[in-house]
């Protein structure tokens, strides 16, 4: 904010450089013939007229209000992008449902049938499809949000609006897709023989928490992706690793409980993996949606040492598969504690993410 380096010379007569001729007459030494600078400090003049400096971060409160005023823009942006995304595909919007279905099919083929990961899980198909659909929500949000600033550059450069609307819009797009996926999920699990219970209502708060978490992370990734292109290259690998460690296609509980499970000897690691946000939201949705899974969760039934040992020794035996309910291990987080974790992750992510994105508001769209 220096106002002393001004070298312009107000008061010079016009026409001084007339007839200089030739290209590139602007020599470095000659002071500019500038009649648009009034005498006195420009900064004082600006403040006198109540002007505000541009390209600085707006105050937090007015930023939030601005975003709230643009809520119709956010929802309109989401709906429009959703429609545009599939306009060139022959099957159109159908891909919103087909993509997660095909994903689940591939994972079932490889992990369910070929590798036999289904050991120790009752009703593996519902378990798998639920996991894939719920994780897909977070996965897609992460990947699309990391490119949001680059993809909407013409819009950013043309119109003034709080840029925080853009990641919010992208999360909303994925939320709209999720609602469709959840409808498909209901059909699949009913066909797979799950009963419809009041527990299904718990899906709504879980998905709200997951959406809030996604918004927070979306903000962070949007800022990173805006300045570092490497993020969008690296992100698919990180997200895929995250998927394999979050119990999407196999059960973390089984890996921890059974004697042959890979996590059996690492209780701390097992606990950490299960309280990671993706695992928390997936487990909660499964708990709400799948009756057999809920009944077989460790701790669901009174402790029974013999039955627990049977499960831990023969998890692949369909006779003992639901005996995991009789185990009461300290290494597995209970459902109430998962709710706390889920809410905690959401609140922490959205606060940090929003502040992080807001701090760089003046820098989006430059370069």
């Amino acid at each position, binding site marked *: 904010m220096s106002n002393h380096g001004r070298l312009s010379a107000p008061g010079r007569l016009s026409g001084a450089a007339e007839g200089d001729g030739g290209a590139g007459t*602007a020599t470095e030494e000659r002071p500019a013939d500038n009649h648009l600078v009034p005498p006195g400090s420009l900064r004082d003049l600006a403040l006198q007229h109540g002007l505000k400096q541009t390209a600085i971060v707006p105050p937090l409160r007015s930023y939030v209000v601005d975003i709230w005023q643009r809520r119709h823009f956010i929802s309109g942006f989401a709906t429009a992008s959703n429609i545009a995304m599939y306009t060139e595909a022959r099957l159109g919007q159908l891909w919103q449902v087909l993509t997660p279905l095909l994903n689940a099919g591939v994972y079932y083929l490889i992990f369910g049938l070929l590798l036999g990961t289904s050991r120790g899980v009752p009703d593996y198909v519902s378990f798998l499809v639920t996991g894939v659909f719920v994780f897909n929500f977070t996965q897609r949000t992460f990947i699309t949000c990391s490119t949001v600033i680059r993809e909407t550059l013409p819009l950013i450069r043309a119109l003034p609006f709080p840029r925080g609307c853009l990641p919010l819009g992208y999360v909303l797009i994925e939320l709209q897709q999720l609602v469709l996926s959840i409808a498909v999920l209901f059909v699949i699990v009913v066909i797979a023989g799950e009963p419809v219970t009041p527990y299904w209502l718990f899906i709504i708060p879980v998905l709200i928490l997951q959406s809030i978490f996604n918004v927070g992370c979306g903000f962070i990734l949007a800022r990173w992706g805006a300045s570092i292109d490497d993020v969008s290259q690296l992100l698919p690998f990180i997200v895929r690793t995250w998927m394999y460690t979050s119990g999407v296609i196999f059960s973390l509980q089984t890996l921890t409980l059974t004697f042959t499970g890979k996590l059996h000897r690492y209780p701390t690691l097992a606990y950490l993996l299960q309280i990671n946000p993706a695992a928390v939201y997936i487990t909660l949705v499964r708990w709400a949606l799948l009756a057999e899974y809920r009944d077989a969760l460790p701790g669901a039934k009174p402790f029974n040492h013999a039955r627990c040992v049977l499960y831990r020794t023969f998890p692949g035996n369909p006779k003992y598969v639901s005996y995991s309910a009789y185990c009461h291990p300290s290494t597995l987080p209970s459902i109430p504690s998962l709710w706390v974790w889920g809410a905690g992750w959401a609140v922490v992510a959205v606060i940090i993410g929003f502040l992080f994105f807001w701090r760089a508001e003046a820098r989006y769209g430059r370069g």
Partner: protein
Amino acid sequence: MVVVEDLHVVYRVYGSNSDRGTAASALLRLIKRQRRPSIREVHAIRGMSFVAYRGDAVGVIGRNGSGKSTLLRAVAGLLPAEQGAVYTDGNAALLGVNAALLEDLTGERNVVLGCLAMGMTKQETMDAKPRIVDFSGVGDFINLPMKAYSTGMGSRLRFAIASAKSHDILLVDEALATGDAEFQRKSHDRIDELRQQAGTVFLVAHQLSEIYETCNRVIWLEKGKIVKAGDDVPGILDDYLVAAGSEPRFRELAAARVE
């Protein structure tokens, strides 16, 4: 109103000649722990000061690469200043040469989203939509994705959207050059209207007659610095023409007009 005080803008550009851009050279760079050598700094604006008041239409002229577009983007608040500052009294809308806002969406959706993004309410947007479509003159194309538009049609629609709301500052960067004669007349009228609503308009154009017709002030840039600035529009335009090796003609035109 716009106050620009000793403004310096520096671009950081990735990927210049010095890097061969192969995977091996990137790896070597990482091993040697060098910063990306391909980052080059371009000092696009080197100390500019001026004041533009409400109701002003300021023409910005200069050769390619003299910093015209950079100046407009800095005024719009899209480029942070390296040194100095830009002060404005409100929202700025920048119209550039890119043809579309969101090119996968239809013109109609772009109109609606553009209005909402500028902070209009749903009702205001619905009211403004027919006017915008009408003004842009794209006709039946309004229902096609904007990527199907010609450059001229795209910039007409963009201008129509951005000028639908009376911005405090409207920055037009060659956006009118691609329009036809009829549209140029219409947009000229619209800019006059915006000026009367006490807005400030900045206009970058290589067609000097456009500046002559529209602007009451001119800034002539060269290598990121102001050569001349003031409200003697025909005079500065003629000096610029002479510097570029052409015949001056605007003083005569202005004199003829007075008579």
